[in-house]
């Protein structure tokens, strides 16, 4: 309810106050319900994983690939303990709601996943460090792709062409690296490839005001078609042009020597380090700098930006092209940072998953990184468990994060609000 009256008599304020009390009661009710869900999760862990593990069986987690660092846990007792802690938290929450519910929720999800791992890999050993490394490797292109989406959409241009830009960049980067023999040239050409397609997207959707979904779809098909054609025509005839190789991993001195963490975080290739830098940097710039304020104003209310002398078209062009560069990084990572060559349709939908990460991350690069890590974790967990073999079909694990995204987009558990002018072409005057 809008409060328009400039100076209300005191007794008129009655109605909104009632509303607030009602809201608080509803909030309390919701908090208690969350408590009950936690209790349920805890009991389920005790039941399924605790009593599902045979007594006396142990689980071993390897924490290093280079040394024998590992921990061994008694499966049943560990799962029972984790379940009990979650039940306890749930009881507390349902009686007197805890502050910072989100943090506890994340903590409980992590504990639940850990319990699941203990149970699923009981009586054998499991490479924790391997799984987390692969999580990071899988998350990097998703996070960079999501960064591309954030840059475009914060300026008001919907970009579903991340997939196409990534694929185009993967091809060009790989081709340039193989042709010149320099991975660095491949790196630059990959970024440029994403930016070139983005320039096309900006032209269609900003200057020609084509529906941005259509423009994005066209670019996706164009990228798929042209790369497949060129791969078939050139790369199959001259296989040498498809031997780009990969960037070597660079171990950062000191940090890289930290056991467990060092192996996961500080022994990676240039793409991962670029992502480490870009994601927080762009977040900072978007929300704290003049550039970011202008980009966001153009994505929220372009007319307001226009009337204070900000060039809406130019701002959108630049943002979309920068976004294309980020998509180029994401794409060339696949060829130059991971596989070492180009394969047809090698993005395999990662551009769209990046889009989901952008939404789940609420159009914030760091949020998108969190979402990308979640998706990456689910993927690598799935592939590890597919090898070990568990009673649960591993495909279900792969589905889980997207179900979370779906719920999120539908408005449960928080509001995902796109920029107000997202997808709306701007007409001057």
């Amino acid at each position, binding site marked *: *309810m*809008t*409060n*328009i*009256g*400039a*100076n*209300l*008599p005191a007794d*008129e304020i009655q*109605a909104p106050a009632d*509303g607030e009390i009602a809201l608080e009661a509803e909030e309390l009710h919701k908090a208690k319900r969350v408590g009950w869900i936690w209790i349920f999760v805890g009991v389920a862990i005790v039941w399924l994983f605790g009593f599902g593990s045979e007594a006396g069986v142990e689980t071993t987690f390897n924490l290093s690939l280079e040394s024998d660092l590992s921990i061994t846990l008694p499966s049943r007792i560990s799962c029972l303990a984790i379940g009990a802690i979650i039940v306890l938290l749930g009881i507390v929450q349902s009686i007197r709601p805890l502050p910072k519910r989100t943090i506890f929720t994340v903590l409980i999800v992590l504990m639940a996943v850990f319990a699941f791992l203990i149970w699923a890999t009981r009586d054998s050993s499991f490479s924790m460090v391997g799984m987390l490394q692969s999580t990071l490797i899988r998350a990097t292109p998703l996070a960079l792709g999501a960064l591309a989406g954030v840059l475009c959409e914060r300026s008001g241009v919907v970009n579903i062409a991340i997939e196409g830009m990534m694929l185009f960049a993967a091809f060009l980067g790989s081709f340039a690296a193989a042709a010149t023999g320099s991975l660095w040239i491949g790196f630059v050409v990959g970024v440029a490839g994403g930016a070139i397609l983005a320039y096309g997207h900006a032209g269609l959707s900003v200057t020609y005001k084509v529906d941005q979904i259509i423009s994005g779809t066209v670019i996706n098909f164009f990228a798929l078609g042209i790369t497949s054609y060129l791969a078939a025509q050139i790369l199959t005839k001259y296989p040498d042009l498809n031997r780009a190789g990969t960037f070597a991993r660079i171990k950062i001195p000191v940090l890289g020597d930290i056991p467990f963490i060092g192996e996961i975080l500080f022994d990676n290739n240039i793409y991962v380090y670029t992502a480490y830098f870009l994601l927080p940097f762009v977040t900072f*710039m978007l929300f*704290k*700098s*003049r*550039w970011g*304020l*202008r980009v*966001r*104003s153009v994505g*929220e*209310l372009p*007319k*307001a*930006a*226009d*009337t*204070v*002398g*900000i060039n809406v078209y130019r701002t959108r062009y630049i943002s979309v092209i920068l976004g294309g560069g980020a998509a180029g990084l994401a794409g060339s990572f696949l060829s130059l940072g991971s596989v070492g060559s180009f394969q047809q349709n090698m993005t395999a939908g990662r551009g769209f998953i990046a889009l989901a990460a952008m939404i789940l991350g609420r159009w914030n690069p760091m949020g998108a990184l969190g979402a990308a890590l979640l998706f990456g974790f689910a993927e690598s967990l799935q592939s590890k468990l597919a090898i070990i073999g568990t009673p649960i079909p591993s495909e279900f694990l792969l589905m889980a994060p997207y179900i979370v995204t779906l719920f999120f987009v539908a408005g449960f558990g928080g509001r995902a609000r796109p920029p*107000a002018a997202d997808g709306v072409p701007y007409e001057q*005057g």
Partner: protein
Amino acid sequence: MKVELRGITKRFPGVIANEDVNLSLNSGEVLALLGENGAGKSTLMNCLYGLYRPDEGEILINDQVVDFETPGDAMVAGIGMVHQHFMLVPVFTVAENLMLGNESVSGPLGVLNLDDARKRINDLSDKYNLPVDPDALVRDLPVGVEQRAEILKALYRDADCLILDEPTAVLTPDEIAELEKVIRELADSGKSIIFITHKLGEVMRIADQIVVLRHGKVVGRTTPEDTTELGLASMMVGRDIQLVVDKPEAEPGAPMLEVRDLSVLDDRDAVAVESLDFEIRAGEILAVAGVQGNGQTELVEAITGMRPALTGSIHLDGEDITSATPRELWTRDLGHIPEDRQADGLVEPFSVADNLVLNTYNWKPFAKGILRDSPEVRSHANQLVEDFDVRTASIDTHAGTLSGGNQQKVIVAREFTHSSRLLVAAQPTRGLDVGSIQYIHGRIVAERDSGAAVLIVSSELDEVLALADRVAVMYEGRFSGVLEGDEITRTRIGLLMAGRTVDSGDSSETDTPEPPTQDPSADGNAR
């Protein structure tokens, strides 16, 4: 700052928006630019503000000819615009909005210096008595405060000439009085001010000079001392006008619409209408007045089946229509002139003929089985276009290309084809010229006299005064008062719109002293 426009002409394809317009104002002066919707006021100001470039003529600032290519150029020259639809980003803070385009930054990365902005905003707030919290999110601000921020935004850019585009359209009478005071203070501190409006009372109160535009041309220059509201109104429309609706005494019959304990949620799930109780009798017009956004829209949508009721019931002639769909309501003789004619009243890309049968296309005589009967639709359309004087090139013209007044006539024609038992009209004459207003008001009264219950929702006081048999004033989802007969006065409605309660005895003392000739509509209503 001295601002002068000389011989400004601006053409758009097929129309001359401004023709040879001359204006001049000095610092410390308030110039009111008066005219009906579509008279060319906004176009003229957009030329001065650099959004448009005039085809002919020149703009002089302090006797120097200037040429503005963008609003940025105008801003640098000291011209600030307070737009009718506020140009503030809802999810930004006041400080972020004010500094946008004019940011104070530090370091090579251009990091925003919010402390600096806050300090400047607080200084300006103090200087011009425009209090606002720099760290508040704009979307949380009431409209009056939002407008204050918008004015500050112009001052933040060191504007010496402020253009205010219909600044009072969304304000309560109290907020309007406050704004008038602010405008006076700004003028006294040496700013020149151009005030665009079509409300005569404001012009008389605050302007130093008045320029009246009609069809893009200046048709009168005067000062409040030399004219009256009626004189201004005649200048605006170009002939002697009668702002009065020829309306015989109401002869109310049995209750037709009964609303009991009705609560409705808005789009954000906040309670917009709160346990409302009222009835309208056959042959009676109830006008719901109030500042926009106090639940009127939701009330109308609930009655017309476009929004579910949270609690309560709605009965039409004894039948429960609480959860009836718009189509069911139509078959029960409900006529509806929706608030947003482009979104809810018409399908803009459809022809006039198709829009005239939007609710009857699938019934005889406009359909034969599953097919439409085009000749029948066309002859029906031709008939209505003639009867209702819709100015359209042909019945095949897209409804979206008609002027606002003619679009509204199409809707009115469609809804009035069949006699209604209940007519709901939301802002029926918003943005229309006087001729169309008179015509539509006449049809509404005729509908009442043929026995319909009529619910009018309007934020235009003149319209409420002209049409209503009873006036209900809506404030924060409830009726803050229902007035009847002699109780219906501007002052009382104004107080109720601001959420005050009024005793019936005090109106003679608090009534704004206005000579009777200046208030023709209130006058006419009394007879």
